[in-house]
């Protein structure tokens, strides 16, 4: 690919993001604007923004790469990413919006009336956020390396600089505009090249689909345990993701939080058809990428290969732009929610503190990303979902639906889940991809039930500690807002 094309695409997305971010600066004046966009964002904007934030490097590059490697086994990733949103809608969306809390630690502190629970939740949120930013930066490094030939660190650093500029300048209000724009950019960036690819293929005659069933890289088929464990991670992990949850506070009430989620489900369903199509096309026309260990670059390279010429260059530029939008939007969403947590807990919650916290929340994962290298983007994001499902998900689900949860139980469960899942992740890294047994590589199937069990049993044992405010809190979480009453 022509390096200039890649650089131009990255520059264009970065400038567009920064411009929309600065435009947003003029309308964000209060701390409320900074954190949750004042809850005045219309559902379609908000749904696009949620979609934009959620579709990360794993969705844009990783899913197609993994489908190229392991075929239908990898289809569980997009299915799980989407179905996770269904679980979010069923169990979390409306009550969490009605809680009126700004962040997950706000919610757990209020629900359990405990500062200690708040601190443990904050720690879990910050770890999830950092772990989740790292694959985004890996994706950026991969994109820059593949399309421009520049060193890997240039890609990660470019993302960090743009995110810092937009977040520090505008907060959540501008982020909402940026994210919504980036969702549609990502969808266009996958859809338009695919249409051209199909046109070219139609001209050349129908392709032979015989080779689809064999894995080009020689990947072994997944066992039922692996698929089930992955689904557990994705289904339960989504409803604990900090950057996704904070978005629900931008809805005016619980019912509109549900409607927004329904729109998001529709947007995600349409989006994931495209990485799937790229993966399928990759198995037919670019199986050598799998053998060369470049599966994650499939989406970036396929349009240039199949279309070619100046049209191919333009399409490649579009895909690169979309990929960068994916890194930028997920990273900035994570940084905003992490900065919200860190600034409230450590720095006293001023706008200045928010800016300092934003810097802290992105410098640490940048260091991690520069020290490590990505194996498979969708896989490493899958592990972050497993960690979220083992820590934040149990405390949210039980906190919303079970009166018996206590502060001690919540802490015990989160610590158990975090240690088990974190331990499995560390062990997997030490043992390497080949040496890790499946139960250790996909820990969610046992670490999530363990966290729930410990949380329930410990709460039972300490049932005298159920907070006195429980009746009031549960009423608030589950009863509909009165119509025509505007909340502040």
């Amino acid at each position, binding site marked *: 690919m022509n390096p200039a094309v890649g650089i131009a695409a990255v520059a264009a997305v970065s400038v567009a993001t920064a411009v929309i971010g600065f435009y947003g600066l003029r309308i964000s004046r209060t701390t409320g604007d900074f954190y949750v966009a004042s809850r005045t964002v219309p559902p379609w904007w908000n749904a696009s923004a949620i979609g934009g934030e959620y579709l990360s490097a794993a969705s844009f590059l990783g899913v197609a790469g993994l489908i190229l490697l392991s075929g239908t086994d990898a*289809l569980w990733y997009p*299915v799980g990413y989407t*179905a996770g949103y269904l679980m979010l809608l069923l*169990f979390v969306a409306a009550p969490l919006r009605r809680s009126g809390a700004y962040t997950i630690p706000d919610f757990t502190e*209020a629900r359990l009336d405990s500062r200690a629970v708040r601190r443990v939740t904050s720690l879990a949120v910050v770890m999830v956020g950092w772990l989740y930013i790292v694959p985004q930066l890996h994706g950026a490094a991969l994109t820059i390396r593949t399309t421009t030939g520049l060193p890997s660190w240039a890609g990660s650093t470019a993302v960090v600089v743009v995110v810092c500029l937009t977040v520090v300048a505008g907060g959540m209000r501008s982020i909402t505009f940026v994210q919504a724009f980036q969702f549609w950019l990502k969808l266009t960036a996958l859809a338009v090249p695919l249409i051209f690819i199909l046109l070219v293929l139609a001209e050349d005659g129908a392709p032979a689909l015989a080779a689809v069933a064999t894995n080009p890289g020689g990947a072994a088929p997944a066992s039922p345990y692996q698929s089930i464990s992955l689904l557990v991670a994705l289904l339960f992990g989504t409803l604990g993701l900090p950057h996704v949850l904070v978005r629900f506070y931008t809805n005016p009430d619980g019912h509109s939080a549900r409607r927004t989620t*329904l729109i998001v489900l529709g947007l995600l369903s349409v989006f*994931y058809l495209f990485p799937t199509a790229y993966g399928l096309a990759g198995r037919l026309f670019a199986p050598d990428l799998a053998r060369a260990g470049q599966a994650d670059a499939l989406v970036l390279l396929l349009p240039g290969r199949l279309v070619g010429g100046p049209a191919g260059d333009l399409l490649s530029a579009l895909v690169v732009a979309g990929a960068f939008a994916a890194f930028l939007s997920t990273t900035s969403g994570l940084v905003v929610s992490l900065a919200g947590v860190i600034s409230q807990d450590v720095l006293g919650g001023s706008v200045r503190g928010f800016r300092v916290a934003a810097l802290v929340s992105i410098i640490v994962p940048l260091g991690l990303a520069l020290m490590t290298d990505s194996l498979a983007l969708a896989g490493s994001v899958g592990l972050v979902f497993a960690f979220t499902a083992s820590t934040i998900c149990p405390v949210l689900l039980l906190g919303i639906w079970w009166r018996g949860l206590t502060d001690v139980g919540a802490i015990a469960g989160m610590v158990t889940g975090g240690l088990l899942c974190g331990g499995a992740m560390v062990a997997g890294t030490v043992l390497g991809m080949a040496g890790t047994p499946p139960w250790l590589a996909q820990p969610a199937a046992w670490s999530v039930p363990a966290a729930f069990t410990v949380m329930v049993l410990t709460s039972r044992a300490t049932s005298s500690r159920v907070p006195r405010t429980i*009746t009031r809190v549960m009423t*608030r979480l589950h009863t509909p807002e009165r119509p025509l009453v505007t909340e502040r």
Partner: protein
Amino acid sequence: MTRVRVTAPRSASRSLADSSAEPRESAEDSAVGQVFVRSLIRSQLRLALVVAGGFLLILGAFPLLLAATPGLAQTRIAGIPFDWLLLGAGIYPVTGISAWLYIRSAARNEARYRDLAGGK
């Protein structure tokens, strides 16, 4: 123009536990109100569990169907193998329909609660 110093609203504990200005306080204070609230929570939880369970059953049935019917996975529809169509595209409508049914029923539960709590 004066400069106003803004600080983050430490809102959570206040807004969740303090109900002084809340329109929902009658439900919190009366025993009858609490009966309605508990029944609302139960019906919402039951609804969520039923929808989630139904969705997961369908999700689990897809690979079982493919495994139990030899040759089905390789059947081509418009040139694309059936297992790709089923797992790659067929699950999304199921998700959307589940979500839509849930939202309708959840809103109906809330409307019933409103009638009960408001009309006593």
